[in-house]
């Protein structure tokens, strides 16, 4: 699975395209009111990536365990203390509604997804990010 994301930003325009294999989608994120740049910053999108990954993985792994999940809420927070420095203290909270299942079953699923979520593990393990000129 090859995933890519592209932003084309100019004054008063912010065109974003994401693609997984041949499946291409646009995301509507307004540009900054001031004119240049995206109104949603990269840090927010990074944390959203974690929340989204957990959400999708939870439904997928829930299906594998024959669990019926009604809803998932994920809130991720992190500290970007200074310019040029990486984020620290990234934490997240999860609320899963699955009335047909016991709290233990739901907790086990949450713990399992925490261990296998791909975006989480990418950050935990670190990845090469290479500029191509």
């Amino acid at each position: 699975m090859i995933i890519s994301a592209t932003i084309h930003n100019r004054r008063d325009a912010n065109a974003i395209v994401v693609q997984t294999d041949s499946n291409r989608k646009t995301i509507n994120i307004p540009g900054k009111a001031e004119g240049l740049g995206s109104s949603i910053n990269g840090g927010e999108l990074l944390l959203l990536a974690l929340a989204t990954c957990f959400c999708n993985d939870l439904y997928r792994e829930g299906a594998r365990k024959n669990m019926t999940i009604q809803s998932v809420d994920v809130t991720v927070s992190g500290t970007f203390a200074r310019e040029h420095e990486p984020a620290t203290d990234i934490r997240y909270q999860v609320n899963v509604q699955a009335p047909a299942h016991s709290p233990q079953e739901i907790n086990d699923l949450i713990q399992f997804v925490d261990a296998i979520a791909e975006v989480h593990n990418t950050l935990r393990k670190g990845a090469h990010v290479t500029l191509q000129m």
Partner: protein
Amino acid sequence: MNLPGPVVLIDDDKDDQAILVEVLQQLGIGEVRLFDNCPDALEFLKKTSEKPFVILCDINLPRMNGLEFRREINESEYLRQKSIPFVFLSTSAIPEQVNEAYMLTVQGFFTKQFSMQSMRATLNCIMEYWLHCVHPNAVK
């Protein structure tokens, strides 16, 4: 389950793809031709010498949705003659889409199940039905 031809599966959602392929494997179906868009599936169907057993297609797909894909198949004399059973497998069953699907003479419309167990029961039902059904694509 020993099918006489591969299952053609069209779904753009990677998680759903993974679940559906796993369920098919649990049913003993290893031959799956997987596509994440209809134009590629259409090209495959026009060129392949295989006799696909059944087409399982999502509705809401980018570039060409499942209903448009079915229309393309109906408009092709070659593909019409192939008579491959065409079944929609969608997250939701909106009445307008269900009506339009059957106007396009599909052979079934099923909603995706939340658990693998339920999904397995649904796919097993579809496969068993078409295994027992005599239709032009099944006649040797």
